[in-house]
């Protein structure tokens, strides 16, 4: 066998691997959309579930999902970005940095059901928040912190050091340098981390079912219990209530995540990266 054959075989193997991954993804997407899309109509989007979800729509779960997710991200983002700036700009690899980074990495490795259990014991019972949007959001915000910290820290470190030097040479303070120069330059990367976190919140079941509950009525405030879309289709499928509606919800969830990604990317490209785009 000569080196050209080697090359050919290697190429074939790599192609097969890539193709296989694509095929699996395509299969899942097509399967869910094929079974779920026919169920989607105006009623499904606007009615609350009836008869345990056997009939009616999923409107309350859409609202619940959006409330839990947006609240979780709103709570986690300031802490996550703040920690990332602390790690990247205010410490020089000392003892405290190592502890914070170790904690963040450990948090990233914890299964989400454990976050659910923690949220149930701490937010739901100890703080007396009950099964509610706020309990679910607080739990999720803890869960997405490691992702936010890591992606933001990487984005901040990727900002060329010369920008900081130039800023200082223009008689800026450290704080002004961070706000006016480092933060805008790191924003596209930070935004990516936020998008990733939104996706994780929307798709989460275990942590949410234990903390936000599984109530089907329309949540009236952040203290109402709610059922997110992911939890809804989990219950519909697991308890054999309605596979048809489970697939409908799953298809809707996929479309929602897709839409959020499109909107977020447009936002990043149009408003955040305007300085570098032609």
């Amino acid at each position: 066998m000569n080196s050209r054959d080697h090359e050919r075989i290697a190429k074939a193997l790599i192609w097969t691997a890539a193709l296989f991954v694509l095929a699996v993804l395509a299969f899942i997407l097509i399967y869910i959309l094929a079974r779920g899309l026919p169920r989607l109509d105006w009623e499904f989007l606007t009615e609350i579930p009836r008869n345990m979800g056997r009939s009616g729509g999923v409107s309350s779960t859409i609202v619940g999902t959006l409330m839990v997710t947006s609240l979780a991200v709103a709570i986690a983002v300031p802490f996550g970005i703040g920690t990332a700036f602390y790690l990247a700009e205010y410490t020089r690899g000392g003892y405290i940095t190592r502890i914070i980074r170790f904690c963040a990495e450990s948090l990233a490795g914890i299964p989400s059901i454990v976050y659910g259990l923690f949220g149930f014991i701490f937010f739901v019972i100890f703080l007396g928040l009950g099964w509610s949007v706020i309990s679910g959001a607080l739990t999720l915000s803890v869960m997405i912190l490691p992702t936010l910290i890591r992606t933001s820290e990487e984005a901040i470190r990727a900002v060329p050091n010369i920008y900081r030097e130039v800023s200082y040479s223009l008689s800026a303070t450290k704080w002004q340098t961070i706000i006016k120069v480092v933060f805008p330059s790191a924003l596209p990367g930070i935004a990516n981390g936020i998008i990733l976190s939104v996706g994780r919140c929307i798709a989460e079941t275990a942590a949410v079912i234990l903390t936000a509950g599984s109530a089907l009525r329309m949540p009236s405030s952040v203290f109402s219990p709610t059922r997110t879309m992911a939890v809804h289709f989990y219950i519909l499928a697991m308890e054999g209530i309605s596979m048809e509606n489970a697939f409908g919800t799953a298809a809707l969830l996929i479309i929602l995540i897709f839409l959020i990604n499109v909107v977020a990317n447009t936002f990043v490209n149009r408003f955040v990266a305007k300085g570098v785009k032609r």
Partner: protein
Amino acid sequence: MSVPSQNAKLKAKSAHLYYGAYHALKDVTFDIPKRAITAIIGPSGCGKSSLLRMFNRMNDLIPGARVEGDILLNGESIYQKSMDVVSLRKKVGMVFQKPNVFPMSIYDNITIGPKRYGIKGRAELDEIVERSLSQVTMWNEVKDELKKPGLLLSAGAQQRLCIARALAVEPDVILMDESCSALDPESTMKIEELMLELTGKYTIIIVTHNMEQARRVSDMSAFMMIDHDKVGILAEYSPTVEMFSNPKDQRTEDYITGRFG
């Protein structure tokens, strides 16, 4: 040395620089005349940039950097405890080696400095932008595209934008750290012309590897080298004409005639 003391803008007095235990610069003493161009020349690694960065305390950003001796700006120590580094850097601006335009519009690149110390009025900022860009002879080229990203300009124009950005803060002194080394000959010529024009108002200190550039633009030349202990020293400091026609130090002569470096 040969500068009358009352004309000195900056004075280095037995200045030493250490990075941790490493002795980078030894016993540098010289006076930099106001409204003139002083060139710092010498072989790579002799501490030219380090010396330049002592004048606006940029070395403060490097962990472990320490200065002994003193540097005076207008007769006042810039290393005294009460010195406000931010206001020092407002007086002593800096242009770096590579053009490093921020990823924002031409207008925002210029106003980022002035906005920092509280200039908010649109008219005032417009005026600063026009003045700074005119000073670097760019105003007519870009006055209709101030909203365009600065990164779209050519490398030479980007560097002139960086100079305009430094001028917008209204410094007295401009430090230029090999500011032409990343540019083509034509852009280099433009920047050199610019330096000569700016000497009417500013004290300019340049670090350069380019002997011809030092000869062309500078009034005073400081020749630095590494001594036998591998520490950077100021070997000779004299008017440029004198240094290039009749160097006092044998090492200077060897360097400027291209025998080493």
